[in-house]
């Protein structure tokens, strides 16, 4: 056990994977000597060589496209996209190729690869260093989408994602990178994909969040607890395939749901979650489902704390929903 922040835990996970499995290799821009712009891969090139930790040319198409080829031929590439905002130049390779390769070859070929990428706001990154594009990938059949909120889960989910036989998008909440520390086993371990976690049991409102916003949801829940409202907070951890049962059971109990995410509201994952709940727990819903999200604008700079669905915006949503 070592006390680690998120960066250290992911680094430890990557090191474990590289040690355990010689088919694992890392690829990305500036991940080698520099150790990544967030230092997540620090020391790994030194330890495992430039052959297993590849500094790539500046091409997301090249990174993702060649990683698919490697995955097709027996390797398990773990790619890093420097910021989630820069995944779009390689979008085609993910949605047209990685996602569909298994289906269109009836399982004869498949693409076990991981795409790690820091996402989200709150670090004064403006329009292009703050986005949360998870919904684009959730809409693409064939991809899995993971988003840990804390160091322990991050390491375990990452190792599970690397072992997974399908392409996994692994969104890292950069706002949390150095903000949270906890005890993390030094040895490799896994946390299963597809299992949400109730981080705060409660009876009156279900609040679903993930990644960096989990802390805001939690803070808001504690805040409203002082005012007598008992909120159940669920950390999704895997966004897709979703642990729908945990959410629906919770709503069946509370009758109320508030979803929190950083991405713009419209067509964000929150809409899907609300729809699923409305479909599956219709008769149990006692208040309109609520989404507390980023606004439907590009991500701003100066007012980013008013853009993000931080606790100050979640609190009234929880109170109104509870009192509806």
């Amino acid at each position: 056990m070592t006390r680690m922040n998120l960066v250290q835990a992911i680094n430890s996970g990557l090191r474990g994977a590289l040690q355990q499995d010689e088919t694992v290799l890392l690829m990305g821009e500036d991940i080698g000597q520099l150790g990544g712009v967030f230092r997540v891969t620090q020391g790994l090139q030194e330890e495992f060589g430039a052959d297993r930790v590849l500094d790539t040319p500046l091409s997301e198409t090249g990174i993702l496209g060649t990683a698919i080829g490697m995955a097709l031929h027996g390797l398990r590439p773990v790619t890093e996209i420097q910021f989630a905002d820069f995944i779009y130049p390689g979008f085609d390779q993910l949605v047209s190729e990685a996602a569909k390769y298994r289906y269109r070859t009836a399982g004869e070929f498949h693409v076990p690869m991981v795409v790690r990428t820091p996402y989200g706001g709150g670090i004064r990154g403006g329009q292009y260093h703050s986005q949360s594009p998870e919904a684009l990938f959730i809409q693409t059949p064939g991809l899995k989408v993971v988003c840990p909120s804390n160091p322990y889960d991050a390491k375990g989910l990452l190792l599970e994602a690397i072992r997974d036989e399908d392409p996994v998008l692994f969104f890292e909440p950069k706002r949390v990178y150095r903000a949270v520390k906890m005890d993390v086993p030094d040895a490799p371990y896994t946390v299963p994909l597809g299992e949400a976690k109730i981080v705060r049991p409660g009876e009156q409102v279900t609040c679903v969040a993930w990644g960096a916003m989990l802390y805001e949801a939690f803070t808001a829940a504690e805040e409203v607890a002082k005012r007598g409202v008992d909120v159940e907070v669920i950390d999704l951890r895997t966004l897709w395939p979703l642990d729908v049962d945990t959410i629906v059971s919770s709503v069946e109990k509370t009758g109320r749901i508030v979803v929190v995410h950083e991405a713009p509201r419209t067509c964000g994952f929150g809409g899907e979650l609300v729809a699923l709940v409305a479909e599956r727990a219709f008769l149990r819903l006692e208040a309109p489902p609520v989404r507390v999200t980023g606004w439907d604008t590009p991500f701003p700079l100066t007012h980013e704390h008013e853009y993000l669905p931080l606790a100050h915006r979640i609190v009234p949503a929880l109170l109104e929903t509870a009192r509806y």
Partner: protein
Amino acid sequence: MHVIRDDGSLDPTLDPGLSVDQVVALYKAMVRTRVVDDRLEKIQRQGRIAFHVGSLGEEAAIIGAAAALRDRDWIVPCYREVGALLWRGYPLQQYIDHMYGNADDPLRGRQMPDHTFSRAHRYLSVSAPIGTQIPHAVGVAMAAKKRGLDECVGVFFGDGATSSNDFHAAMNFAAVYEAPVLFLCRNNGYAISLPTQRQTATRTLAEKAAAYRIPAARIDGNDVLAVWRAVREGAERAANQGGPTFIELITYRLGGHSTSDDPRVYRSQEETDSWRKLDPLLRLRKHIEQRTAWNDDLDGDWRAVCDAEVKECVRRAEEKPPPELGDMFGDVYAEQPWHLREQQAQCLGGPRASDEEDES
């Protein structure tokens, strides 16, 4: 520059030294591909299959390249290279079943016709988006190199694909990582309706390789032995840690882009006629007629054999039922998640489009 000269003899300075059996095998494979193409085009016109994209006129480029690769080398296809897959022994019946999307289609009816693949034949999967396969090929080559395997990769694509994002990324990565990969660019004159001269301002496609410091060759793609020679050379360079090679195979798409296309709208009959005289089958036939006792009879017999074979395959394919409806829900992931289980049950338990049609 020809290996097979216009009179059918070989240029002794370039002759790659293939045996009679080998050249006859090449010829037979090229004819077979042509016959299969012709038959598929006919049945498509009759509405019996949805679509076909053929290789009329490009057989030498495709089969010559496939033949020059070793069995352990990978082929990464565009969509016009089923001839290469058949060359490697892929069962014709399986291909035709795929063309029908029937229960024996290895794709289970999940994709348009001509989207083949075969792990056994080291042939990756055809995908419709132009260019996407090119970085895959580089990745496969990088993996082979990392794993210490003596394999190289030949990736096919067209002139149009040189404009794609993926071409650029793949060429650059291949050169930077010295991947054992052959870029086999079928310059067949057109990307659907756009002639190569308007696809790019360069006079040749081979010039593009300089931007990545990849050695390039420009080859008559209708001279199967010239193709064979260049590809074998590239494969040897790759095997000797010499990295990638770019080969421009100059050829011509004698047919439409696909069965959905009518090329008369955008090119002249004269142009096509002039290329018909350069048909790769003619050039090779002249050569084998010189070298062996090949003649009209033998030629006709072989064509008849091929046609009978494909007709029989078609007959069988048409007897087969469609794939199970449930097949639509498989292989999205290694394990079927809850939502697909639910959706599959809903679909299987629900009404059918065909019921609807029956009603109306």
